[in-house]
């Protein structure tokens, strides 16, 4: 089947190829190039793009998407999918908001919200591992369940009047030098670093790649695939909760319609960032760039005066173009 002639591919040539790819930073390069080109273009054509205010506004605007995308990335690396992240963000934010209106202190409300989201992730994981449901179906169901609970628990009305101390989580800018860095952006960066290290340096991280690359090989190597999948879905719920709570704090209101359709933005950010839907390929750095690219496209189209109603079409086209370019660039570097 996989008949290959060993001599046809001298090891030294393959090694040179690997060294070259290592040098140019492998996967993130294509998407990084697009991102930088787009940012350069916007800096030259508009006066408002490259200002500290705008940069931090954009960073804050995609921070919770990026945070949820880190969790989604873990799931997709194992060749799974979690469609419930958007609903879960809304549900976790609502959980924290309800606790606050019942008089809970901020730390307890945040803890409660995190618990809700993590629990949703755990149930997803159990459905996929214990009950052997396809991830697409299990999380599609969970997407609807979580959204339904947000409507049911609120009667469709947004929860308002959240305490200022809670809202500061999303609205406060921490002074760093001469800049004010929004708290959600700091949380995003800290989580990005931790998740990157987890994936690159720990055995669990490596096993996530292994399961996505060849599940059977991972199993016969003594890796507990089920435990690992349970871990990634639970972690995905945890990240969605973190994103959802920050989003709620920023908006100062927990609406049952919040984060509607975010799952697609999140999955798009992950895939644009170079994570393969077939599993085993991709990094957190890529996801971060993917989420940033999505946001700069949105902001950029606004700044350029692109008609608002046409923006979704433009964004969709850019997603397709970005991934095609990325594929092309990767294919070239592999042949090189």
């Amino acid at each position, binding site marked *: 089947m*996989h008949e*290959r002639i060993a001599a*046809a591919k001298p090891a030294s040539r393959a090694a040179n190829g690997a060294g070259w790819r290592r040098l140019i930073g492998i996967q993130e390069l294509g998407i990084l190039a697009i991102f930088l080109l787009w940012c350069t273009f916007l800096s030259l054509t508009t006066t408002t793009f490259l200002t500290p205010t705008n940069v931090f506004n954009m960073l804050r605007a995609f921070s919770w998407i990026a945070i949820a995308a880190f969790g989604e990335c873990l799931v997709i690396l194992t060749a799974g999918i979690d469609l419930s992240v958007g609903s879960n963000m809304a549900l976790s934010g609502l959980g924290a908001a309800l606790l606050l209106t019942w008089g809970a202190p901020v730390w307890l409300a945040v803890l409660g919200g995190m618990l809700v989201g993590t629990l949703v992730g755990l149930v997803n994981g159990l459905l996929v591992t214990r009950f052997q449901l396809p991830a697409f179906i299990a999380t599609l169901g969970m997407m609807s369940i979580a959204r339904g609970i947000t409507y049911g628990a609120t009667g469709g009305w947004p929860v308002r009047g959240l305490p200022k101390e809670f809202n500061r989580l999303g609205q406060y800018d921490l002074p760093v030098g001469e800049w004010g860095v929004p708290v959600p952006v700091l949380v995003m960066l800290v989580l990005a670093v931790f998740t990157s290290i987890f994936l690159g340096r*720990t*055995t669990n991280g490596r096993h996530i790649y292994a399961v996505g690359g060849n599940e059977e090989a991972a199993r016969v*190597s003594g890796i507990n695939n089920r435990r690992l999948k349970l871990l990634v879905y639970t972690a995905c719920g945890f990240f969605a909760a973190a994103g959802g709570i920050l989003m709620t704090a920023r908006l100062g209101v927990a609406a049952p319609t919040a984060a509607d359709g975010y799952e697609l933005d999140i999955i798009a950010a992950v895939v644009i960032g170079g994570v393969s839907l077939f599993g*085993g390929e991709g990094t957190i750095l890529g996801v971060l760039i993917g989420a940033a690219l999505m946001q700069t496209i949105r902001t950029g189209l606004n700044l350029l005066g692109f008609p608002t109603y046409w923006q979704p079409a433009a964004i969709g086209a850019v997603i397709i173009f970005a991934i095609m370019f990325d594929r092309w660039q990767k294919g070239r570097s592999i042949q090189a």
Partner: protein
Amino acid sequence: MSSQQTPIVEMRNIHKRFGAVQALRGVDLELYPGEILGLVGDNAAGKSTLMKVLSGAYLPNEGDILLHGQPAHIANPEDSRRLGIEMVYQDFALCNNLDVAANVFLGREVVRWRLGSLRWMNKRTMEQRARTMLDRLRIDISSVRLRVENLSGGQRQAVAIGRAIAFDAKVIIMDEPTAALSVAAIDKVLDLISSLREHGASIIIISHRLEDIFRIGDRVAVLRQGRKVADRPVAGDIHEFREQVVAYMVGARDDYGSENDGENGAVRSPSPVNA
């Protein structure tokens, strides 16, 4: 000479049923230290099942396994690994998206420190050890950081085999190690398998390619319909060897146990004798 030694592996009277199907009907198999044993048989003869019993993937319904003459309890793949039995799978069982060093140490990473279930890998040590292993086995791979998808079929099989030996396996089971390889690669892999003997391993090879077993094997055991029907040293010339083994495989000859070696056994009628 070897028959006077204690076998490193001794399987006694192994039975395995899958529902109504009797996959193994009382098989005895010995493997001696430093030996390469070929295990052959037609499809569904029970050779893979027998090896999965030894590697802990299946529990036998009946029978015993002795290692170094001591009864061994093998309930799962981890048990057999701990006892020094490694399996090299037909499809190599490697992760193409990981590099050579990661594959060699997959599931057994060298850990620098741990915090609960978080284990921090010692990548440098793993890379160095993988390099040493490749050099020791004279496997021609330029860098342990190469992703497996960039290797040739022969190199992949070499990594899969090297993986087993890297953890000082005493017994290595190989399922069709040359099935997916080109002619040039087969040569190299067979040389590699032969050289494992020098590293103190005993090897069982499941193979359809009788010429491979003839070339590197010391002994061949033939299974047919869940029974061992022949067990003899590899000797003579290739054509004679092949003819005899095939005769046992297809049931044209069925005289095992009736006479000492079967060299002068009778050739029966081709109709299969079924129990």
